[in-house]
């Protein structure tokens, strides 16, 4: 009777760490880990000895000491006696403001240009291609500086609005474009305005509810309710009614020339406008390409199939093309938003006080706490981008094609 012999047991040898694929990966990971530790230890030791040599330490105490500088755009209460931490928070809010405005405007620009690039009109197509190529191929910093120069060097000074025959005049008597910024009417929230706002919000909910009901009715009974004009009625009529019943609680405060400058209204600084529009136009050019690619990614057969089912062009767009195109468009769109947010750190070039300008700019220079400031700055941006990536992952998973 024969027995199966086991393969000879090879005792472990040192050379197997390199030659045997079973152990090799452990060797490499160990080497990588050791190298990483050595590198970090080396950098850390340098840091400690450098700090000791300069008599410094790592500490975040400076955040609670008074900032001693002014910020020209203050969405929350702030004065020069407020702490550095508060200055950073003001900066964070300013970053979010410009990022939000920029993303919204960039979407409008990008979608318009992307759709028009596919227009049957040759001239419009070429113009949009020109827009996309020009803005994509020139650094955003240069665009920010150009628009900032327009806002500060080309716009008339406030005193040119004075006199019998002024050199400059306000648009519709409501908008003043000056080299100190743009003045627009500001809403004044009188007593009762909350009711108006709440009514409006309720009407928005109402519109959604109505459309849902109409769709359900269509699917259940086949009866088609009109969608367009009832939505508009629901959206505006109750709000306007309440607005006039309460005696117009919301009014507009128009800017007016007082002395050497404009008074009243909302003052939008040139730096904000430069940053906002430059980022929007620049990112819009990238979004336009994404939108175009997304629409072109839907094959022509889809349109033809929908048409052969008897759908009208508008329904083909809404029910067949857009749902498929959006699946392609939205992920790059979100990463463009992320890019815009990161690019908003260029605010420092035009003196817009975003978080890079306050925490990474003046606070850093005043306190000399370079490591702490840059670390906090990076953590802020890292948090935003990780949050947006997380949202994107959830979205991607939710729209993933459910394949067999």
């Amino acid at each position, binding site marked *: 009777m024969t027995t199966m012999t086991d393969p000879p047991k090879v005792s472990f040898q040192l050379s197997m760490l390199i030659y045997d694929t079973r152990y090799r990966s452990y060797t490499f990971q160990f080497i990588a880990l050791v190298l990483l530790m050595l590198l970090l230890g080396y950098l850390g030791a340098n*840091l400690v*000895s450098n700090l000791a040599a300069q008599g410094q330490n790592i500490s975040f105490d400076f955040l609670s000491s008074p900032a001693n500088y002014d910020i020209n755009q203050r969405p929350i209460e702030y004065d020069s006696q407020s702490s550095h931490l508060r200055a950073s928070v003001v900066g964070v809010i300013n970053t979010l403001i410009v990022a939000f405005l920029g993303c919204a405007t960039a979407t409008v620009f990008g979608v318009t240009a992307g759709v028009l690039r596919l*227009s049957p009109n040759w001239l419009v197509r070429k113009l949009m291609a020109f827009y996309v190529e020009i803005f994509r191929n020139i650094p955003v910093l240069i665009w920010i500086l150009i628009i900032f120069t327009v806002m500060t060097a080309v716009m008339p000074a406030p005193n040119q609005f004075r006199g019998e025959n002024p050199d400059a005049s306000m648009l519709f008597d409501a908008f003043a474009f000056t080299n100190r910024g743009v003045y627009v009417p500001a809403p004044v929230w009188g007593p009762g305005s909350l009711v108006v706002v709440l009514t409006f919000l309720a009407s928005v909910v109402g519109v959604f509810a109505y459309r849902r009901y109409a769709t359900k009715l269509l699917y259940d009974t086949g009866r088609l309710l009109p969608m367009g004009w009832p939505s508009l009625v629901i959206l505006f009529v109750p709000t306007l009614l309440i607005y006039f019943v309460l005696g117009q609680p919301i009014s507009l405060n128009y800017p007016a020339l007082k002395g050497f400058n404009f008074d009243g209204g909302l003052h939008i600084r040139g730096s904000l406008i430069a940053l906002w529009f430059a980022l929007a136009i620049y990112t819009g050019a990238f979004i336009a390409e994404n939108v175009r690619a997304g629409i072109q990614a839907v094959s022509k057969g889809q349109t033809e199939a929908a048409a052969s089912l008897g759908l009208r062009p508008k329904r083909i767009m809404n029910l067949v093309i857009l749902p498929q195109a959006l699946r392609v468009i939205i992920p790059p769109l979100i990463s463009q938003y992320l890019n815009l947010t990161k690019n908003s750190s260029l605010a*420092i070039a035009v003196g817009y006080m975003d978080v890079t300008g306050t925490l990474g700019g003046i606070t850093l220079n005043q306190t000399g706490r370079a490591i702490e400031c840059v670390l906090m700055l990076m953590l802020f941006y890292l948090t935003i981008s990780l949050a947006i990536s997380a949202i994107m992952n959830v979205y991607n998973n939710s729209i993933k094609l459910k394949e067999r």
Partner: protein
Amino acid sequence: MSRDQFAFVRKHMLPEAPPPATQTGAIKWLRENLFSSPGNALLTIVSAYVVLQIIISTAPWFLNGVWESPSLSACREILDGKVGGCFAVLTERWNQLLFGFKYPSELYWRPGLAFLLLFIAAAPVLFAKVFPRKMLIFTGLYPFIAYWLIWGGSLMVPVFALLGVLVGAFVYSRMVTVNAGVAVIVAFVAALIFWILSGYVTASMENVLAIEAVASRDMGGFMINLMLGVVCVSLSLPLGILLALGRQSSMPIIKWICVVFIEFIRGVPLITLLFVANVVLAYFLPPGTNFDLILRVIIMITMFSSAYIAEVIRGGLAALPRGQYEAADSLGLDYAQAMQLIILPQALKISIPGIVNVAVGLFKDTTLVSVISMFDIVGMIRGPILASSEWNGVYWELFGFACVLFFITCYGISQYSQWLERQLRTDHR
């Protein structure tokens, strides 16, 4: 029924009639492309009007442009109230815009020559089919030649740097039979030891074959943008490949090191990394070392772009069908061979458009160094030129010039990548 019943029977085919006038030539094109519907016609007219207005209002500015004058006020005198651009600022400050304001003017030919040689060095890489492969030798030598031309100093420094690379390559070729990973590490260590040792040698040979040295802080203008762009893209490509492979790796520790690095770098704006280069990096270097600002910036920008390139290449790797990996395994290739011969050539080909996008974006981002007070072209315009008493207030000519430079470069690169994509397309469509 006889034939006579019919009054007339045609015996010959009529020649084809020309299509109606509305269906041919320019008219058809106009009708289809510009006036296909009332809405389109309106759109055409409005956009044509806008374009015309823009041309009419800017044409005199170009046509009346003054190309020679010592200052803005002199230029305004020449214009005498007419609308016109003062392009004299470009001719007057040409060298400053290109080389910065401190680079010795008698040495301008050196960066100029380095720039021209760049084309010769890049040609065999960019147009591999047209130029002989032997020219790649020059491409390999180019970094050392360019360094010597731009920074000057003893020829021995770049020569020893090159020798170090050769030592590393020799060690690698000897060790690769053992294991590619080990070979890379050992070769790197060998080159490093050689460089450290040669540092002592070159220090004593400062004047051997030396040309006038130029300090980094004296450089500026568009030269800096080009230098940063070329150096950082070429350095970040191999780094990006390594990071991408690391991220795909099955070894968890290596994978996580790469993931953390890539996600961290991609999550922060470049400007914060430039702050690190400017004010923080010095804390992490041994006391007393005095790194050039430009070198620190190169390190940070390279890290930045390598993370982005790694993500692009990871996309390329992921797009390869699983069968390619399995085929490589079944041929008995080890990891390094499989990557080198099967996987990477295909993955890189897929990634070309993405890599070019990153490269163009990076080149545009080199203007950000003006924020940390380096005088690249934007820094030169905003700093020394606009602040000078002669040219205070000449905005459009200067910004326009910077726009033209960047547009030509970036548009050219993206057109090249589209051409390359068509060249490399091997599937049959």
